[in-house]
């Protein structure tokens, strides 16, 4: 089997995993939120969410009808022998899964709204590239982000003379309260601080993938902010779908980057409750390690 075919098959399985099942540890925090919810409206909704996860898993259905803009992240190990065309491999994988699972035909030309009906085109699936020095694997992540949450994300710049930590907290609160129920809470919140605005946003979206949800940043200053924000956001009472309740966010993850002395961007990224992604490592030896889900078919 050629390397291209092997990678394509992994990509297809990851897309199906991401669409039909949440990463094991993400599902666990949703179960936890359901168990400890006291608001009856939120409880009924969280029970429906748990039932939906079971049905999607058993019947191999999409968790949500909105697969977003399909994207992949690849992290290429320096010891992994590679000479392949990722664009065509991942395009073929998305088209196959979009047809067979199916995935809703989301992707259109941004101006003409022309829809090829394949969920691909004009650079989609979008690919984020990374490099891992000294590793002998290729790490692939399939990303499906619902529009309702992804499009509530954004970036602002802090005033240089203002207290930084408070500024970050205020920005996160502004975004979360502005969005209310639209991003399908309980959400996962990614916060990127520093760098240029594009770096901050990229870090914020990357932070959504941290597992297990709620694991703190190794930098104690960042970890303290994560803890404060997580507790405070869950006191707002926005709740499931903005209809009230104890859990507004499932986790808050921060990432930081060296910053310009005068301008500190703060980016906030949302994931709806179905924080959908799936990761596998494909080793030089041919071994495949499924990182986010239990085994190849996630059982």
């Amino acid at each position, binding site marked *: 089997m050629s390397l291209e075919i092997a990678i394509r098959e992994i990509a297809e399985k990851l897309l199906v995993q991401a669409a039909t099942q949440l990463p094991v540890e993400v599902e666990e925090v949703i179960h936890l939120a359901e168990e400890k919810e006291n608001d*009856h*409206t939120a409880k*009924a*909704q969280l*029970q*429906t*969410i748990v*039932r*939906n996860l079971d*049905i*999607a898993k058993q*019947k191999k*259905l*999409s*968790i*949500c*009808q*909105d697969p977003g803009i399909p994207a992949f992240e690849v992290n290429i190990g320096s010891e992994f022998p590679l000479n392949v065309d990722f664009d065509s491999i991942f395009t073929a994988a998305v088209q196959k899964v979009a047809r067979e699972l*199916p995935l*809703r035909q989301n992707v259109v030309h941004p101006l003409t709204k022309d829809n090829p009906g394949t969920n691909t085109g004009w650079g989609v699936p979008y690919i984020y590239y990374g490099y891992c020095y000294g590793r002998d694997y290729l790490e692939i992540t399939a990303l499906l982000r*619902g*529009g*309702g949450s992804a*499009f509530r994300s954004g970036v*602002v*710049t*802090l*005033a*240089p003379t*203002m*207290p930084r930590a*408070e*500024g970050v*907290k*205020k*920005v996160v*609160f*502004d975004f979360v*309260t*502005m969005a*209310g*129920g*639209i991003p*399908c809470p309980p959400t996962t919140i990614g916060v990127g601080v520093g760098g240029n605005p594009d770096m901050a946003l990229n870090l914020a979206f990357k932070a959504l993938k941290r597992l297990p949800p709620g694991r703190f940043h190794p930098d104690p200053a960042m970890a303290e902010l994560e803890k*404060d924000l997580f507790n*405070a956001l869950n*006191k*707002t*009472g*926005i*709740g*499931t*779908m*903005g*209809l*009230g309740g104890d859990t507004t966010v499932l986790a808050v993850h921060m990432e930081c980057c060296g910053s310009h002395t005068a*301008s500190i961007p703060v980016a906030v990224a949302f994931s*709806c*409750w*179905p924080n959908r992604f799936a990761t596998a490592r494909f080793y030089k030896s041919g071994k495949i390690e499924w990182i986010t889900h239990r085994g190849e078919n996630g059982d």
Partner: protein
Amino acid sequence: MVIRHISFPLEEDKEVSLLRVGDIVYLNGTVFTMRDSAHQLLFSNADRGLTPPMNLKGAAVWHCGPVVRRDRDNWEVTSVGSTTSYRFTGVTPRLLEEFQVKAVIGKGGLGPEAIAALQRTGSVFLATVGGCAGVYAQNVRRVIAVHWAEMGLPEAVWELEVENLGALIVAIDASGDNLYGKTMEQVGRRLADIYVDLNIHPDYRYVYWPPSLPGVPQVADCFKNYNPGEE
């Protein structure tokens, strides 16, 4: 809070007019899906004196375009969930008053004109749980008919037979109570204490760019006037 099973078309109007926000509803009988084009065509046909192919009296209308699969002569609904309802604010009063629809199903709520119309007509807005396309697809027993399929499958009106479609949350009731608005007002009140805890000064301008970001005092307002578009 009560849990009710209600059949549509309604036999008695009070089955919905007595519902209150926070109640949970499971829906049986018939539901019509209607998106933007369906509202437009319904109204323009009515303006020309044409009778629609479906009877909406006492009906439940769902803001959604199902994902369907055709198996020989039968349609199968594989995935079904709400689109954002807010953009139907303008068309909802006529749907309720002229066509006597009694329940609107969707997500994210409706604007003030539509809430006033729900109150005038004793109707309700029922919220689906976002991201639960699998559960709701399981509640669809069969496709009774598809109307106006020439508008494209998502925009067509799907007449669906449903069994215990739910959970649906009564988010706006016939007394004009709005659970989204109520929740966000409560959020606004809680923020004062939360900001003290977090050491956030309410008058400080922490953000330098952009010059204005819809901030906290306007939370409820900005949510009310916000049209998130199609997602």
